[in-house]
């Protein structure tokens, strides 16, 4: 089995930052990423094709980081899924040119997050896509649709609207689920020092105003219709718990609906490694526990960036440096003192943590939004499991996510519950009067990504029986 000093999962801002920090200390590093190019979602490389457009400051930053990665001795495996993690720090890999199994002395998990989506009747229709998906299309000069409605929460809604307007696409409105203002006022201080973020936010806001795009607070899509493709969307007002207010519905015609209700950390690999998870009430999700050095309860396993707790790229960069310094010291490769390093970047750290707190406080959906799904609404997109199927399982006595999974197959499909775990947990909690903590999440198990059986066998073979 191949061996490496530090294996980093994810080549986004956090992973690249950790890798470069470690490489500088002379540590042997491999970085494994399932995307075709490094950068993660924040430093997405698609815009490289758009030679006509001037790069934004953060895109320029991404170009710099990728150049450093390219010039380094870091081993980089792209298009490679880490489909399982096993004790003794073994990673099972599936990708072109990657070894089937890799043993590491330390692991840095920088797995990033995915968009939290909400189930409502019609959300599985072609034409309903996430905000991120729409941004990627648009960056490639491909239009997601002709008439676009945007619904969800967070600054990205406005950013996407502005990007689409610039591309000449008709945006018919932006629905922000949060009742922004009362919650935002107490956090104004968190904007201190966030010049770049403010500039982008204000710029996007101005283009919305200029084009008279309606921006509604406390509103969300509640119904999407169309035979084989999206044709119209009904939206409604939400109360303070984000519960739809009956009688407040309005219907508009559009061919594209972009949704995004914040982000959920991708924690499956830290779960399979045995890292202790805790419930994060601010972002309503499970997150790996860790200490100030980003190390989890398993010695030599670090967890950083949005894959741990949603804090954005700036925080991920800092956490990557901390984990890098700490891991290098642990391996005896560096005399840099992690504690001293942290105090050296304390100002930047607390600035980003203030922003993170503001972001999750204002832009985390209330539990009322999970009441949008109806009896025949599909919750598990992979297996076609509906709300009614979940109710039947509850009637049979299921009251945890694990039992629901066994009875219904929800969460057992290709995505391994990433799209539906939170949707189903919320319905079970509501129907059984239990807390989300009691209901739990779907327990991820290897393979957390689909893997061809021959590659699975190869991984097991190469690890010489050390898996599981």
């Amino acid at each position, binding site marked *: 089995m191949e061996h490496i000093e530090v294996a980093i999962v994810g080549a986004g801002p956090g992973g690249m930052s950790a890798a470069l920090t470690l490489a500088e200390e002379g540590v042997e590093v491999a970085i494994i990423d399932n995307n075709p190019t490094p950068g993660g979602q924040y430093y997405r490389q698609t815009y490289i*094709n758009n030679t006509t457009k001037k790069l934004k400051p953060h895109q320029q930053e991404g170009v710099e980081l990728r150049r450093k990665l390219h010039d380094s001795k870091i081993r980089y495996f792209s298009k490679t899924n880490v489909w399982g993690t096993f004790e003794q720090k073994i990673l099972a890999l599936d990708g072109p040119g990657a070894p089937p199994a890799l043993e590491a002395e330390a692991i840095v998990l920088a797995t990033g997050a995915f968009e939290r989506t909400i189930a409502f009747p019609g959300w599985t229709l*072609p034409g309903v896509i*996430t905000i991120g998906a729409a941004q990627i299309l648009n960056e490639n000069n491909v239009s997601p649709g002709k008439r676009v409605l945007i619904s969800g929460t967070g600054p990205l809604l406005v950013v996407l609207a502005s990007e689409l307007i610039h591309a000449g696409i008709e945006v018919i409105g932006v629905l922000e689920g949060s009742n922004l203002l009362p919650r935002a006022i107490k956090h104004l201080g968190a904007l201190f020092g966030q010049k770049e973020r403010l500039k982008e936010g204000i710029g996007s806001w101005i283009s919305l105003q200029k084009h008279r795009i309606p921006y509604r607070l406390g509103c969300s899509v509640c119904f999407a219709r169309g035979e084989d493709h999206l044709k119209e969307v009904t939206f409604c007002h939400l109360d303070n718990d984000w519960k739809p207010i009956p009688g407040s519905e309005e219907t508009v015609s559009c061919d594209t609906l972009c949704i995004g209700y914040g982000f959920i950390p991708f924690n499956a690999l830290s779960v399979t490694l045995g890292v202790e998870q805790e419930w994060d009430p601010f972002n309503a999700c499970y997150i790996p526990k860790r200490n100030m050095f980003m190390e989890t309860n398993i010695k030599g396993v670090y967890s950083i960036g949005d894959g741990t707790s949603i804090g954005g790229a700036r925080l991920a960069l800092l956490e990557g440096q901390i984990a890098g310094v700490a891991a290098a010291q642990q391996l005896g490769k560096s005399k840099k003192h992690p504690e001293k390093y942290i105090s050296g970047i304390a100002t930047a750290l607390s600035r980003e943590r203030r922003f993170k707190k503001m972001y999750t406080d204002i832009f985390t959906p209330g539990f009322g939004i999970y009441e949008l799904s109806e009896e025949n609404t599909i919750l598990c997109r992979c297996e076609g499991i509906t709300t009614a199927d979940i109710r039947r399982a509850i009637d049979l006595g299921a009251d945890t996510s694990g039992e629901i999974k066994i009875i219904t197959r929800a969460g057992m499909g290709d995505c391994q519950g990433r*799209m539906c775990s939170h949707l189903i947990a919320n319905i079970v909690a509501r129907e059984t009067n239990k807390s989300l903590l009691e209901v739990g999440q779907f327990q991820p198990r290897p393979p957390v990504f689909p893997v061809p059986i021959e590659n699975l066998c190869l991984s097991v073979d190469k690890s010489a029986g050390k898996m599981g």
Partner: protein
Amino acid sequence: MENSNKENLPGNSQSIIINVNGIPTKAIAGESLSCVFYANGWKKWHRTPYGAEQGLFCGIGHCFGCLVTVDGVPNIRACQTLVSEGMDIVTDIILEGKS
């Protein structure tokens, strides 16, 4: 950097031809398959085991709604696959409209 896929380093906007269900289709080197599909107005191409028709959804490789067969290999995510000259794509659903 020791790269396992050197051909995927930053490219240029070169126009290429790929085969989609046997039909030659224009694409731009370096863009993803889901971009090619959307550029052609195709918004669904994958049929789930229970018969639902899906296409692009999450866009970042997590939802598996955009699966296609690439050069004979099934269950490949269109959103994570960058196109290259001559790539052979087969979809579960017949694609209609322009190409």
